[in-house]
């Protein structure tokens, strides 16, 4: 029988990441931890104690080494956490959301470690269900694809968290004759409704998709 005097406890900070993970996943292998093996973090040698502390957690929940999730994730994802301070942002710095509101760092069946749904769109529309569709008229590149084509979910300096300001974002794909391919310069900032305020979506307001029989160009929803 093992003599307790002679059995040394495992020191997790002295063994490899894989060995640490094997200890923790003895119990934590169900539910939100079920997809850990083969997940992005596991494959990059992230160990449970990279983020969690058993004996001296700083957070009030989840036994994190940092005071909150942003403080944990910023260790490796500094650029994403920095975006939270931009003017267009989700309510993370206000405490209404955190990284795990969208992501499961332990592994997921969705892409990008998203914890809800099976595509990027299904993750976003789990909260923004009014944009889920399916639609009578679809906007190519959005439905069935990714909201992240146009929006930066972590934060952006542009209104509505767009990856580029309007009208430039729309002009990346729409070049046809007349107003889509017009140069909207400083002479028209106060006179062209294609530039000021909501720009293109002042008219094309049903931009995510339309359920209107005349909605093929998203002028009506």
């Amino acid at each position, binding site marked *: 029988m093992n003599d307790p005097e002679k059995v040394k406890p495992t020191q997790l900070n002295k063994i490899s990441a894989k060995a640490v993970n094997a200890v923790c996943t003895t*119990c934590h292998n*169900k*539910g939100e931890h*079920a997809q850990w093996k*083969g997940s992005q973090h*596991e*494959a990059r*040698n992230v160990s449970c104690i*990279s983020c969690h502390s058993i004996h001296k957690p700083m957070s009030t*929940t*989840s*036994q994190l080494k940092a005071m909150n999730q942003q403080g944990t994730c910023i260790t490796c994802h*500094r*650029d994403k956490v920095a975006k939270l*301070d931009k003017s267009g942002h989700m309510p993370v710095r206000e405490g209404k959301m955190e990284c795990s509101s969208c992501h499961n760092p332990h592994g997921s*069946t969705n892409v990008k470690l998203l914890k809800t749904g*099976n*595509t990027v769109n299904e993750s976003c529309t789990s909260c923004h269900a*009014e944009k*889920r*569709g*399916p*639609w009578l*008229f*679809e906007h190519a*590149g959005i439905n*069935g*694809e990714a909201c992240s*084509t146009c929006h930066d979910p972590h934060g952006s*300096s542009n209104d509505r968290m767009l990856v580029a300001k*309007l009208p430039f974002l729309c002009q*990346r*794909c*729409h*070049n*046809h*004759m*007349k107003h889509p*391919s017009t*140069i909207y310069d*400083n*002479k028209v*900032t*106060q*006179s062209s409704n294609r530039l*000021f*305020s*909501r*720009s293109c979506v*002042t*008219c094309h*307001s*049903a931009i995510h998709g339309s*359920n*209107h*029989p*005349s909605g093929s160009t998203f*002028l*009506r*929803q």
Partner: protein
Amino acid sequence: MRHTSALTFALLLAAAPAFAQDPPSIPAPTDPVSIGRSEFTGKWYGTVDLGARVTSIDGDEARAQRYRDLRSGVYANNAVFGRRTQDFAFEGQAWNIGYRDQRYMLDFQKPGRLSASFLYDQIPLWISHDTRTLYSETQPGVFRLEDSMQQALQAKTTTLHSYEDQAVQFDLRTMRKIGEADVNFNATPNTAITVYIKNTNRDGHIPYGGTFGFSNAVEIPMPLDHRTTDLKTALEWSNDKGMLRFGWDGSTFENNITSIVWDNPLVYGPDASGAPSQGRHSAWPDNTLTYLHGTGAFNIPGNGRVTAYAAFGQGRNTTDLLPHTINTGLASPPLSRTNAEAESQMTIMNFTAAMRPASKLYLNARYRYADVDIQTPEFRRDNGQVSYDSSLKTSADPSEYHSVKRSTFDVDAAFSVAPYTSLKAGYSQQGTDYTHRIWESTSEDVFRVSLDSTGAQRFMLRALYENRQRTGDGFNAHALEAVGELPTMRHFDIADRDRDRFTFIGTAMVSSILEVNASAGIGRDTYSDSQHGLQMFDSDQYSVGANLAPDDRYSLTASYGWENYKSTQRSRNAGDDLQFVDPKRDWTTDYTGKVNFFEAGFDISAIERTLIRITGDWNKSNDTYLYGLVTGSPLAVPEQLPPVKNELLRAEIDLSYELAANLRLGVAYWFDDYKVEDFALGSETISGIAFPPVQEGEQAPSTNALLLGYQYRPYTAHVGFVRLTYGW
């Protein structure tokens, strides 16, 4: 036994939903009063902050409180109450009680048997205090103007500018109310049943376009009154060799407002072609999304595991369609069907195999299949359509749907080249089939190599290089011709693209009290086949930082980062077919973005019974969009747009003093300063609700826009707190 139970509780609570991040409407105590949470005596324990807040905001008070409620007044926050025994743990928490951003949570745990939690959360979104409107919402979704105003504008005896002063101020805001419950029941030690239900109500108003034509842009306060209900159920069986899980997820979206009707400011009536007196939108349609899914996993030799996941889903929108127009002066074309009959079917499959065939070798393979198949029948419009409720086209194209089918294969091999250090090489192949896009399919090859050195006491290093090459196949020229696009346009989300990415993160313990860190992220995207559209996108992100903790009494963290972004896109300005084929009419937009940010925190516990925390962060971005013309261009030289700037500075100081073991006095001060310059939404551009604005001394021109006045404005906020934290 007690210690085992305590550890079990701690581990279980660690697995509970992480609701309990302190929302910063009110400062989190830096020094929680000792409470009986670690005891299992069955006694009730708790803690609560009782305090008062004084807030002063100069400038855009809506943006300062965008997702939070900082109103002056007394408050109760961070309230915790609970009870623990050897058999169960129960805890309730409450934040910002009575304020717009209040939140409540209950959690019950019976280790090994049952865990249940309940959350109620309110998320306010205050968009603008500057908004004004001439519309009256006479009933939900119906917006009317004064008849006399419409008549005068139609007769051109006055302009909208003369009515500016009559516009009524209102707060443009929404409220999201979320209630969710999560129950996990272990029917046996190996079997768990989970039920999750969430209900989200959202109401309020958002800015929305309700335009009547190129020269008649209108912004209305779109009303929101909708609900999303989600139900997820699953049965999971697991042991130390594997697991099986089956589940059903369902979600419904219901909109209590089915259509929006609003007056045309420039037309009173009677309705005529080109002159509708009112417009009509349908509101967002009701929809459902359901999934049946199953997961299986089992351990394999070599410390490995194989996981398989399959999900079959359906999305539906069976909302009745509105007629083409509300304009009684037009013969609304008959509908080819009266219901959207919109449907999507999804098939998702994931297979993962991870194994360690040798002590220094780790292999990982993944296959993912995702098929989003839009099954909506084509909606024919052989009798035409109506644009803006204004102009009738006697024929129009039918609808087209964009199904996507994607297969992704990934394989990685990691080698332990040194203690705690692995070198990994990987390859991915992603193939995607599209319908009605410019490519019938795309194929993307990804090569990556990474180095991860972790576990060493003194340093950590992670570096990754990735090269992605995407090419399209089966060019579909019709997808561009049908919408009048240039044949050389390539849509950047599926265009041929070469991408290189390099990321680096490093941390080093320089001494026992000082840690330094650095990170870098460099990305280069080139769209070599895109003669028009997005041509290139570069991103560079860097940061350096340090953590200094000379002893338990002081700690200092600081980091500085800078980011640079560049992109180029190309277009062609054309008003007729001849101009459409003239390459000299090409023009470009060069975007440059620069971001600088700094954050620091200083904790001091050197003074007896006192904790001091000082934090600050600063974020500044500067975006420029520069137009360029080709040599010999016939286009007028554009007047360049001013840069778009955002700058946010936040500083907080929190001081708490221990009056007694279970009583602390705290004072805090927050400072927020936001600056913004925006050529589209800044206050220099949005100076009223009727556009273009009238210059002093000029006669008011014919108006071409009636807006809400939503604009970006700077603000400075000072918030002071005093609180007592009591625990029992």
